[in-house]
């Protein structure tokens, strides 16, 4: 039971938000500069190697994201990975309600923890495709000229399909964010109590008043802003 709860509930720490937006920035740069080689109207970006330069510069923050997460917030990073790959009976129940949830109905959803089943599968697939897009990208980068026609085509297919997957996941992610007004969690770090109750009731009920007020202020002192 939660006692008189605040209207706003703390959800993401500053370091989590930093990593999220670093991921957004580098992913969008990679997507756009990559599209220069896929979408003819953008081919002018590729002339002279401009899009390639952008692509390779954006690779650094992108592939460092998981390492940065593990360094800044080791406990939360581990929690994210284990939660994303652990599914319970409740999650199955959630998937049955998913079609209605996609269309804007939360009613009848089994109460969810910090991550709902959809978020878990989103994170898990993002993680797997992150690995395949990065691996095939490095093969294309460092193997160019030595892959042969079949090798190059296979690596390019893995790269393209991983990006297709990641793009669809991103579109879905943005969709749910704006459908359920969840953006503030990643901007200010706080979500409305209403959102927390509707979408993550088990998580909301497990929070201590101090945690709900500001998890970042207590133990965690914004490590991202120190240097």
């Amino acid at each position, binding site marked *: 039971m939660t006692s008189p709860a605040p209207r706003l509930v703390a959800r993401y720490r500053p370091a989590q938000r930093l990593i999220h937006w670093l991921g957004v920035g580098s992913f969008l740069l990679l997507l756009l500069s990559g599209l220069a080689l896929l979408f003819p109207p953008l081919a002018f970006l590729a002339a002279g190697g401009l899009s390639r330069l952008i692509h390779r510069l954006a690779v650094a923050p992108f592939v460092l994201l998981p390492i940065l997460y593990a360094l800044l917030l080791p406990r939360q990073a581990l929690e994210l990975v284990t939660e994303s790959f652990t599914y319970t009976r409740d999650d199955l129940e959630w998937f049955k309600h998913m079609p209605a949830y996609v269309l804007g109905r939360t009613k009848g959803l089994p109460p969810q923890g910090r991550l709902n089943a959809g978020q878990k599968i989103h994170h898990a697939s993002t993680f797997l495709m992150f690995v395949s897009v990065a691996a095939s990208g490095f093969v294309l980068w460092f193997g160019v000229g030595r892959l042969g026609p079949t090798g190059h085509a296979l690596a390019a297919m893995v790269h393209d399909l991983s990006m297709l997957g990641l793009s669809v996941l991103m579109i879905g992610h943005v969709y749910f964010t704006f459908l359920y007004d969840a953006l503030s969690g990643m901007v200010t770090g706080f979500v409305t109590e209403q959102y927390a*109750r509707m979408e993550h009731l088990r998580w909301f009920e497990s929070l201590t008043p101090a945690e709900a007020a500001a998890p970042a202020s207590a133990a965690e002192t914004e490590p991202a802003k120190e240097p």
Partner: protein
Amino acid sequence: MSTRYAFSIDLDRCIGCQACVVACHAGNELGAGEAYIAVRDIVRGQSPDFWGSFAHQRCFHCAEAPCVGVCPTGTLSKWNGLTVVATEKCSACGYCTDACPFHVPHIYNNHVSKCRACLEAVQDGQLPWCAETCPSQAIRFGEREAILAEAKGRAAALQSRYPKAQVYGETQLGGLGLLMVLLDEPAAYGLPENPVIPAAQTVWQTAVQPASAGLSALAAGVMGLMFLFARRQHAREKAALHGAETAPAAEAAPAGEPEAVQPGEAHHD
């Protein structure tokens, strides 16, 4: 009707003098170490029974050119049977270097480097530098039909001395734009008997690439439309919840399900 041009190289006439290599380098103002064509010696057998010839490494101007197929920027394209290069569009991605079955295109100084068939000269009605320069008439250039007929005649004439003499390139990859009069089997010159575009490359080009772009765009469109509907649905639910916050009487749920958004006993341990 457009013309279909082609080169031919008669390896019986070639004397390996490298004049074509030098003329190409000078005429195209290539950089230091850059080369569109290379001529090397092939020697087989043991003394005193030598067999020697020259192998030319240069663009074959395939009709169905794999390099043009994979080029994402339109740098490589076909013009009257020739594979021409718009260097200013090149991103140096290197896709062509992997796709070419003859290992011809290379990346030099941040752009693709391969024979451009001296496009400006040809458009001017002149011969490419190599054909213009060749002192033994081994390199010919002109309309493909005439070039092919001439090459076939040469191969037939050579068969008395070289039983395996043949024309290479009549049908490969839709017909090559460089026909070679060989004195032996293609393998003797390191040429693939039947170069093909591998299935993986076709699948990538014709299915995976368009699908990746198309399905992403489709997903964005469909979800955009769904959003309009779902957003209204959610607004109704929120309005109902707002009423329920003070008096926990839920909005009429059609299936009579328990109000899931009420904090209370968690049916989970």
